[in-house]
């Protein structure tokens, strides 16, 4: 896409203007996205789009090569009973698992995303974060999911956060960078908006809500606020930024509500896994069960779907 070639303008973080957020207004607007009724053909289409946007994720201390291989297999064989299903967008793993994942999905179009920068806390010095990122890239990661330093952000050290993101972006080179704001720790929607703007101006290709380790994670309110930041930036510069809600989206219904929101705020251009992703592990099965329900007419059981 030509948008990618546009050189971003460097703006000093002090000069980024983040509007304050009307929480009540956000809640009302979000409630309206949730009242849409999506049925039949459009529901099936929506489910398939959502399935294709999933970053199938395993980020646990107990992850083993076997677990990662199993997940990669699932990414490529979502439900073999049903032909013509799209695959997921990517698998998302820890840096130490990148090579294993990469080998499994090689040549399939499914990307490997790696979390980095001392995920999930981000409590490490910059040089460690850079090495962490470099390691993931050397192992073959196509995408990097970094976390911001929430402690620094909350103490008002916006320049620090900005510089850190810019440095990691520099390390990433051509790999796409997703910046995790961990909105569950940012306390207010004003902070979410501020952090979104900092991330976008510092070089993020994607902004992402959460690590999945903290509740609340990707609420509709938070995703809405971040989408508005993406929209404002696009209106101003013509550059597209991707969005990835992660954590807490485990049902098809919620995924469809998110798609409605994306379409109405940003438009059809964002309705592809190039610009919108779901970070999830159990969502895939729920969508598969919904698709099978629509095609067979009977409600499904998780007994007949692969284990997450």
């Amino acid at each position: 896409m030509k948008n990618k070639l546009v050189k971003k303008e460097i703006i000093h973080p002090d000069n980024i203007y983040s509007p304050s957020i009307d929480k009540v207004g956000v809640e009302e607007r979000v409630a309206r996205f949730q009242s849409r009724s999506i049925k039949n053909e459009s529901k099936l289409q929506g489910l398939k789009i959502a399935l294709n946007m999933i970053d199938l994720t395993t980020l646990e201390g107990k992850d083993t090569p076997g677990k990662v291989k199993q997940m990669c297999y699932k990414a490529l064989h979502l439900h073999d009973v049903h032909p013509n299903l799209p695959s997921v967008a990517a698998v998302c793993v820890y840096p130490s698992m990148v090579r294993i994942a990469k080998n499994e999905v090689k040549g399939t179009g499914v990307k490997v995303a790696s979390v980095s920068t001392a995920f999930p806390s981000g409590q490490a010095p910059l040089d460690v974060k850079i090495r962490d990122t470099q390691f993931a890239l050397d192992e073959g990661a196509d995408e990097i999911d970094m976390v911001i330093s929430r402690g620094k952000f909350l103490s008002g050290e916006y320049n620090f956060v900005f510089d850190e993101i810019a440095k990691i972006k520099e390390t990433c080179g051509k790999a796409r960078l997703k910046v995790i704001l961990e909105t569950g720790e940012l306390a207010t929607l004003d902070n979410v908006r501020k952090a979104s703007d900092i991330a976008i101006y510092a070089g993020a290709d994607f902004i992402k809500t959460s690590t999945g380790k903290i509740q609340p994670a990707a609420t509709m309110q938070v995703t809405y606020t971040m989408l508005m930041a993406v929209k404002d930036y696009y209106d101003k510069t013509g550059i597209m930024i991707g969005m990835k809600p992660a954590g807490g989206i485990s049902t098809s219904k919620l995924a469809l509500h998110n798609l409605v929101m994306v379409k109405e705020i940003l438009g059809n251009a964002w309705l592809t896994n190039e610009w919108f992703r779901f970070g999830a592990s159990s969502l895939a099965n729920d969508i598969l069960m919904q698709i099978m329900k629509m095609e067979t007419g009977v409600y499904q059981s998780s007994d007949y779907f692969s284990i997450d």
Partner: protein
Amino acid sequence: MSRLEILKTYKIYIGGQFPRTESGRFYSPLDKKGKPLGNICLSSRKDVRNAIVAARKAFGSWSERAAFNRGQILYRIAEMLEGRKEQFIAELIQQGSTKKNAEEEVNLSIERTVYYAGWCDKYQQVLSSVNPVASSHFNFSVLEPTGVVGILAPQNTSLIGLVSIMLPVICGGNTCVVIASENLPLCAVTFAEVLNSSDVPGGVVNILTGTNKELNETLSTHMDVNAIVYGGDDLEALKQIQENSVLNVKRVFSYSKDWNKADSQDLYMISDTQEIKTTWHPIENIGGSSSSY
């Protein structure tokens, strides 16, 4: 001053909550004089789906609970029934029973609850077995609950049929979704309140009101239901349920008993919704005096 009576809103019971039907619909069954009994939720297939999700969620912890504790909880249901006896009697009379029959039905319901409460920590000992085999194995069979059970309560009673058919299912560690009697639904809703105030965890029993005709189909085709217990007497409906159950090989049981009889209760109603797990455990000696068991 005359007082305006506050009428009860009859709601359904899903996952330990009392929602109205998702569809917003209702029906008004009539008593013998043609007067409406109340506005009853006309549940939809989505309510059935939600109830099954709730039952599946509750299954793990209910089936793993200590048998003795399940017995305590069932006994607690009997205690709560006893405390609300008058209300059940009044509802039965409202639905066409005589006072004497109503009293008998409620008393029997309480006794039957105690009966199954007692079985909770005993059926396993009675029904499991150690099996003789011709190899070096200790071979034994134990019962495990089937899973989520769909229950279509008997149509001709309001309380005793429901209680008789549902208790053996949960006694054995299953969770269930019950469709109440279509024309006599009052006691089913009140019974849900009894369950809610005893220690039965939310989701173990879910009770819906509505028409069997509409709900049978969803319940019997649902892939996450492992067995159906049918208490009605419509053979056409039963045939349909059996055909639908082929989809995921559900077990189907049909009972037609006079539930008001004192002996319409037995151990084998518990074992119907149990699966048998047989284990071959390697040992050194086949048997005889040197055997360790």
